[in-house]
């Protein structure tokens, strides 16, 4: 068996699967249930400053998009931070950590962007003997209107400032949670790094309206005829999250900064992909909220099986392995030439590759050959774009086959060169590096 024990900025957990700060981690009852199912850690739902707790709406908090069979693809929410009393939460955190010493227990925090507010809450958390804190600079709804959450996360200077306070006033590891609702996620990551954060976690949820009720023309979820943008999460956001994780992992300034990967992790495979792009662990919410805590068993087993099959002994063998392969467009090899190839034995003749190519792309797939329905690639027209592969309903039916060096690309009439060559040196590039 592979070793999937995780050590993330000194916080140890039996596996890299943590529950993200969210409704599933709002109280001891839920967290204990999660630990019993095997979750490696939790980030306790965000605590606010002392005083009367926030209040939530009393109507719908969630909206969703689904596949045809109501498979939940994306979820959004307008829930705020914990609406329970601060001291009740702190007492429960302390008790849970005592009951489950081998699990990671990190506490998410969001207080006003003032030094005293942070200075006040940090000792209270420390006293619980929790393993660390996560700074919630992400929530895009509600709290941001009060100058917290993503309102902080969107201003790198604030991020750096708050991180600095936290590092100053606590010995606990600090994880800075980033909002994706920003043009360039590297900026707040660099700021957090500069402030001395131990790690960043991302992504928080994305500003969204899931749907519009066409009977009363109101956005969903609808509260008494009105709606507000909420934070979007679930499988639909994973590609966005993967990119943002990778951007930070390969950035010169933040390279090596530990990352806790969040965003649509639903299966072991999703988790492995985040790890490969540089995440040290992953945090999960929507999948648990959809299926319950038991899904972690699949994640643990699946990750183990995959690592065993591939000979990866520990998480360190996986973490960041894909980062060197993430590059800028300009460095992609323009001498790499592929052509689509359709396996006629697997083809079920739906014709989607043809119509996608014919209507919207390069007219490179036949519909008829010698009077019979048959879909074949016309190499003279194929640019190797991969659209046919993506729209084909049969896995493995269409392959992108690279041409070997020395072969003729029948579209361009050029012989494929063995050497790597990219845009920076391409003759069409007006900015190409001067060779002479």
């Amino acid at each position, binding site marked *: 068996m592979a070793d999937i024990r995780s050590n993330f900025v000194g916080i140890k957990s039996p596996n890299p699967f943590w529950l993200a700060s969210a409704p599933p981690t709002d109280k001891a009852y839920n967290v204990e249930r999660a630990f019993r199912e095997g979750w490696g850690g939790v980030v306790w739902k965000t605590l606010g400053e002392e005083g009367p707790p926030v209040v939530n709406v009393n109507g719908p908090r969630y909206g969703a998009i689904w*596949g*045809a*069979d*109501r498979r939940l693809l994306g979820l959004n929410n307008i829930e705020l931070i914990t609406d329970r009393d601060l001291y009740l939460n702190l007492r429960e955190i302390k008790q849970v950590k005592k009951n489950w010493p081998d699990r990671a227990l990190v506490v998410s925090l969001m207080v006003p962007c003032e030094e005293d507010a942070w200075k006040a809450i940090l000792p209270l958390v420390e006293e619980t003997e929790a393993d660390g804190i996560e700074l919630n600079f992400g929530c895009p709804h509600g709290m941001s209107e009060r100058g917290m959450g993503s309102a902080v996360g969107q201003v790198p200077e604030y991020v750096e400032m708050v991180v600095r306070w936290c590092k100053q006033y606590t010995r606990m590891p600090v994880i800075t949670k980033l909002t994706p609702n920003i043009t360039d996620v590297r900026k707040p990551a660099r700021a957090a790094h500069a402030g001395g954060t131990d790690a960043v976690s991302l992504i928080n949820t994305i500003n969204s309206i899931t749907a519009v009720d066409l009977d009363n023309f109101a956005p969903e979820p609808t509260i008494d005829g009105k709606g507000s943008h909420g934070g979007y999460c679930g499988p639909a956001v994973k590609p966005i999250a993967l990119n943002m994780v990778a951007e930070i992992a390969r950035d010169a300034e933040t390279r090596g900064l530990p990352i806790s990967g969040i965003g649509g992790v639903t299966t072991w495979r999703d988790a492995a992909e985040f790890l490969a792009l540089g995440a040290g662990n992953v945090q999960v919410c929507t999948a648990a909220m959809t299926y319950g805590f038991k899904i972690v068993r699949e994640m643990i087993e699946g990750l183990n099986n995959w690592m065993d099959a591939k000979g990866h002994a520990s998480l360190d063998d996986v973490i960041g392995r894909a980062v060197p392969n993430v590059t800028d467009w300009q460095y992609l090899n323009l001498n790499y030439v592929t052509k689509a190839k359709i396996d006629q034995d697997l083809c*079920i*003749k*739906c*014709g*989607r590759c043809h*119509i996608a190519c014919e209507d919207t792309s390069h007219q490179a797939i036949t519909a008829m050959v010698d009077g019979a329905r048959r879909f074949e690639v016309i190499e003279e027209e194929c640019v190797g774009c991969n659209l046919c592969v993506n729209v084909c309903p049969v896995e493995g039916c269409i392959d992108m086959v690279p041409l070997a060096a020395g072969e003729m690309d029948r579209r361009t009439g050029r012989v494929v060169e063995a050497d790597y060559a990219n845009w920076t040196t391409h003759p069409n590039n007006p900015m190409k590096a001067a060779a002479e």
Partner: protein
Amino acid sequence: MVQRQYEDGIVPGRLSPGDYAQNFADLHPPLEEHEARVEADRCYFCYDAPCMHACPTSIDIPLFIREIATGNPLGSAKTIFDQNILGGMCARVCPTETLCEEACVREAAEGKPVQIGRLQRYATDAAMGEGRQFYGRAAPTGKRVAVVGAGPAGLASAHRLAMHGHDVTVYEARPKSGGLNEYGIAAYKTPENFAQAEVDYVTAIGGIAVEHGKAFGRDLSLSGLAGAFDAVFLAMGLGGVNALRAEGEEAEGVENAVDYIANLRQARDMAQLPIGRRVVVIGGGMTAIDAAVQARLLGAEEVTICYRRGREHMNASEWEQDLAASKGVAIRHWLQPKRVLAEGGKVAAVELEYTQLSGGRLTGTGETLTLKADQVFKAIGQTFEPAVLNGSGVGIALESGRIRVDGEGRTSMPKVWAGGDCIAGGDDLTVSAVAQGRDAAESIHRALMG
């Protein structure tokens, strides 16, 4: 409490009342909204979809399914009705397993085609359930067209002709419209009087007068119609039934399956229908299956279909054969009827001879088998009765014993078109009759307005 289950002879009331209701309930219950959406989601929206080509009426199947998937069942229904105004019945009775669903790429992919027939029913039910009409009539043309027969071909042509502004008179020999939809198809495929509901839905467009009890060849002549109308569409179906050509077939208890089914379809109370304890059905087509299955559903203890060739030669689809088997019907192959054995004038048994193919010809082997039977259904095919045409003093060309038509449904006689089971070269399917009626109507329209 089952009173007469094991009584010999042909008797009614073999089952308890609740059994009848259960046995003759919808064969395929309608899809619920969510089921329909999930099933619709399975459709790949193929390019130039094979299912469309397999449909005799060329319904745009991917489009109507996509309209279901997007929550637009009425739009879906219109897509269906544009090509097939009897899409509701076709959804119920089409042998989809040999048409659209056989061609479905998911059949190739995983042996589990999209349930096109049930989706079509879902959409058409939605429109018909709320009486939503999609078509109005064009400005009156002043042209009058006679349609002979109010079956699928006749109704489809009448609707399309009325749509184009022509006035249509439909002559129907039977007391009700619908043809085989009303009198011929198994009850469990079209329960709750759907055939009449559909007739009402189709004729609601207006401009269609139906005269019942008017039999062609008896009350009407072709020359008379051709003289009185601008055009005539013949869609009278098949009036004759093939004989067994077996000794003793005049015995009491030997019946035409089509007559028995027609009677069953009109019965208000299935418990009143007499059925044999041991029933033998001779034939290998859909009528044989329908008769045999319904005999079982009425409480016959043993029902055996005897077909003179092999399973692979049966006109009934494999799916229909499996349905019969699931209902407890035994299907025996390579047996032809030789003699009906009677006792006191009533059928008591059937003597059959084993057959074989030798040199491409079917021959008896000489070996025989006797099956006890108190009722025998003949279901070995129907025939066109040309007397109704030529007896009226008009010559019209036939081919293989049925009316010869060209690609547009024109007969050899000017002003006369034909479609449905009475024409040569057809496949005796409701959906084909609809296509022929529709296409003949377009041809008539072009001819009248040309």
